[in-house]
């Protein structure tokens, strides 16, 4: 059974959650609680906090996230290819070159349009 091999992974996830729980419980149970208005103020370099902490952000953050998504999917297709590469030989190499060429086209387009510029 393949699934049994993953039991330790589940245990480790449990351990990690347990650790998180332990730290949080220690904080809640043993840490003193004497909140004052000033203490509860979100930090703003010592100035009185102005307005809410939420604000809209520049669109480039989303652009990075979207380009990441596309290349992440690309990488996932490369994993099975990499594993089988030595069995596929020249044919597999040709297949991937076509795949990569189209993607590099996308990269060049994004680059030329300035989507990779941060400023």
């Amino acid at each position: 059974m393949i699934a049994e091999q993953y039991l330790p992974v589940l245990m480790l996830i449990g351990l990690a959650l347990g650790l998180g729980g332990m730290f949080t419980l220690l904080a809640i149970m043993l840490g003193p609680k004497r909140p004052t208005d000033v203490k509860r103020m979100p930090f703003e370099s010592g100035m009185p906090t102005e307005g809410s902490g939420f604000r809209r952000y520049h669109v480039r953050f989303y652009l990075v996230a979207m380009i990441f998504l596309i290349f992440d999917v690309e990488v996932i297709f490369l994993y099975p290819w990499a594993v089988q590469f030595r069995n596929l030989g020249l044919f597999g190499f040709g297949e991937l070159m076509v795949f990569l060429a189209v993607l590099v086209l996308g990269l060049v387009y994004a680059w030329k349009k300035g989507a990779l510029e941060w400023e």
Partner: protein
Amino acid sequence: MEVFFYLFAVLATVGAVSVLLIRSPVYCALALVGTFFCLAAIYVLLSSEFVAAVQLLVYAGAIMVLFLFVIMLLNLKSDQPFALKFSIPKIIGLAVTVGILAQLIGVLNSPAAKVGPSGEYTIERVSAEGATEVVGRLLFTEYVLPFEIISILLLVAVIGAVVLAKRYVASGEEESG
């Protein structure tokens, strides 16, 4: 192992239902992450490791992060508590849902659903060769054309993302970052 199946199936369902019932978009997104995680666990129970890993990597690790990112940075907050209000679209939706549910029950009870596992790639064969290896071999021999078409799809996605985002950059809204 059946215990785990029921555990993850129930958790996945709870997560999916919470996505519908919770009003706060952030919590909705997190509930969906939970559902995706449980689905990945169910794929592992079905001995389909590669699909499980990809499910986590793409859905939980990439798409939902993008969702959450957008929700958070646009500050989409909803303070309205969940309220059960009936409107005509909701009633139609309910009817369609009940219809699909009836159909599902019908399909699961039909003799075709009781054949059990069949086909060339049995669990034994996949675990002997390795899930990733099987996917790789099939994807790059029998299914080459779909694979190459995917690259075109990804190209379209890149262009779409750039075109959409660049329009907003050009309009020059003042934002921090």
